């Protein structure tokens, strides 16, 4: 409260306004300080709550889940939690374009991993346990497409965005354009993202 004493009456009136203190413009400096202190009490309680809410968070969500996120070419992030199962060990099966590619033994209850996968594939994972020699799927993840740096050639089609009709268009010099693009790709790779 020491800080309030340092403020000018005009500034105290502004603070009083924030707290919705009535008749603030008629109050003397000491009256303003008293009124602000009184109005601040519930705020102090709230700040204790806030203090707790902004500091304590477990890495676990305490909710069963299995998610996959794309990170960069060739890598996805997988995070899971399983509640209410006795088994300690589970198996994570990785699918690329709906085909089972490989599996990894994991802690069943909680885990996170960056997994190397093939670029440009649709990836999803399943988490399950071996039971009586059979695999039992407990969770299926969402599906993501893995980022790629590959180039894809294909049919050049043009469309009018106003009429939605396909149109014939052409370039004058495809070879020249290719050279420009190659140069620009090189420059793009050199750019270091420099925002702070």
């Amino acid at each position, binding site marked *: 409260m020491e800080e309030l004493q340092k403020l000018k009456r005009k500034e105290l009136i502004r603070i009083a306004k924030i707290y919705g203190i009535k008749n603030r413009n008629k109050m003397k400096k000491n009256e303003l300080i008293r009124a602000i202190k009184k109005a601040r009490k519930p705020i102090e*309680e709230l700040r204790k709550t806030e203090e707790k809410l902004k500091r304590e968070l477990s890495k676990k969500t305490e909710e069963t889940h299995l998610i996959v996120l794309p*990170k960069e070419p060739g890598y996805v992030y997988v995070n899971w939690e399983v509640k209410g199962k006795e088994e300690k060990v589970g198996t994570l099966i990785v699918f690329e374009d709906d085909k089972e590619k490989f599996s990894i033994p994991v802690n069943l209850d909680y885990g996170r991993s960056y997994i190397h996968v093939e670029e440009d594939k649709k990836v999803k994972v399943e988490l399950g346990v071996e039971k009586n020699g059979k695999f039992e799927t407990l969770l299926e993840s969402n599906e993501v497409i893995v980022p790629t740096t590959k180039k894809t050639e294909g049919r050049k089609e*043009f469309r009018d965005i106003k009429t939605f009709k396909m149109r014939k268009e052409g370039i004058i010099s*495809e070879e020249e354009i290719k050279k420009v693009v190659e140069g*620009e790709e090189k420059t793009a790779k050199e750019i270091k993202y*420099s925002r702070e």
Partner: protein
Amino acid sequence: MKGYLAIVLHSHLPFVKHPEEEFFIEENWLFEAILESYLPLLYNFYRLKKEDIPFKITMSLTPPLSNMLLDALLMDRFKRYVNSRIELTKELIKEGGSAKENLIFYRARFETLFNFFENELKGNVINGFKKLEQDGDLEVITCSATHEILPLEVHRKIQEVQVQLGIENYRQIFGKDPKGIWLGECAYAPPISQILSKYGIKYTILDAHGLFNAKPAPLYGIHAPIVSEDGVAFFGRDPEASKQVWSAKEGYPGDFNYREFYKDIVYELDSEKIKTYIHPAGFKFDSGIKIHRITGHVGLDKKELYNRNKAEEMVEIHAGNYMFNRERQIEYLSHIMDRKPIVVAPFDTELFGHWWFEGPDFLYKLFKKIHKDSSVVKTITLSQYLEEYPVLQVSSPAISSWGDGGYFKVWLNDSTDWIYPHLYTIGKKMLGIVNKIKNPNEIQKRALNMLGRELLLAESSDWAFLITVGTAVSYAKERQTFHINAFNKIYNEILNNNIDETFLDYLEQRDSIFPFLNYNIFTEER
């Protein structure tokens, strides 16, 4: 005229508002951006209009930023911020000394900009955007609700809500639908194109490799937009046009005559003497009064005084050089393409003025030079280009972002990956609870709306970004943690029918983004 230059400025800051504290250092991010970037830019754009110089520019205005610019408490505090700087320069000028000339320059600058803010913009920065938008000089586009990295959002419905709210926020301000959208950090992955199309967005901007690696690779590279199967146009960032301004090494902002960002006068003054201008607890923070020039590769103690005339000479030279390079680029491209090429140069707005002090003057000079001296290049907004060239190559844009590395590692790495399971979980809870609570009473409705705001604020990409780059790390972690916890607290209270109304009141004051938000937006279509 042989081709177009499209300058695109992305204006964004995270939502930071702390009514519970009289002075809150992180609120200065907004005040610095207004005083050092938004006002000087708008001021220069108004100057161009008065001088009858035509110019075209595309600017995003993100919902967190626009909500702050329209917040009465924050704008009240902004006025206090500017006035204290004007007072400080006056005090320092009285003392004289070798820096007097630079201090007089700063005082005049602050007063001019504040006068512009109060009188021309009527105390509302957004009025400047509106006026220029109405006059057709500026095309304002929207952004996803809280600048979320949409490819890292698992729930398709929440990706949609981010886009829908970005559009709704724009409508509330401009009274019409936006044509374009800036995706938070230009982060793209399917099915975003479908979502943009569903909500009527005509175009967005990606980093160069979003087009270079599109399927199929576009004929024109980044010098014409492509269109997805869903009918959304995608423009690509031009690396050459960006590098000259972005690069700390080779870019213009590193010129030794330009103002030094890292040396602020406040750190050289006696705390006792300037106590009324610093945080009441005695912390010093940037005053924005920076009177030295970059000088060279020397320590802060060796920096020489800023020479405004010399800096202005360099601005003239750099604007000329930038135009010359674009002309050469466009001249060449125009001979090998069947249409006028476009060079898209997107930047963070805050680069101009806040980081690169002379940036707003650079743009002013550039537009002026292009108008007066160039027969090769003309400026254009992105939707104007689509009007002129509606026939585009059909191609699916590649997964990409404009962050370091070009993908998502800036926001998803060992120090930030703890965030995403929480976002997934609270997102799932949000989508569930809107169907679970039938006929809510008034307090429950308020709590459900607040739940939506806490979820959206938790989804801001800014917290992960700050953690990764090591800036304001504690604050970023606290904000990320707080929004997740606040969501869970209110969620449990709604389910247990024991809503803490005092806390709800408090959050409504503090996390007051999207006052129009209705929780029903999270209801999934069946």
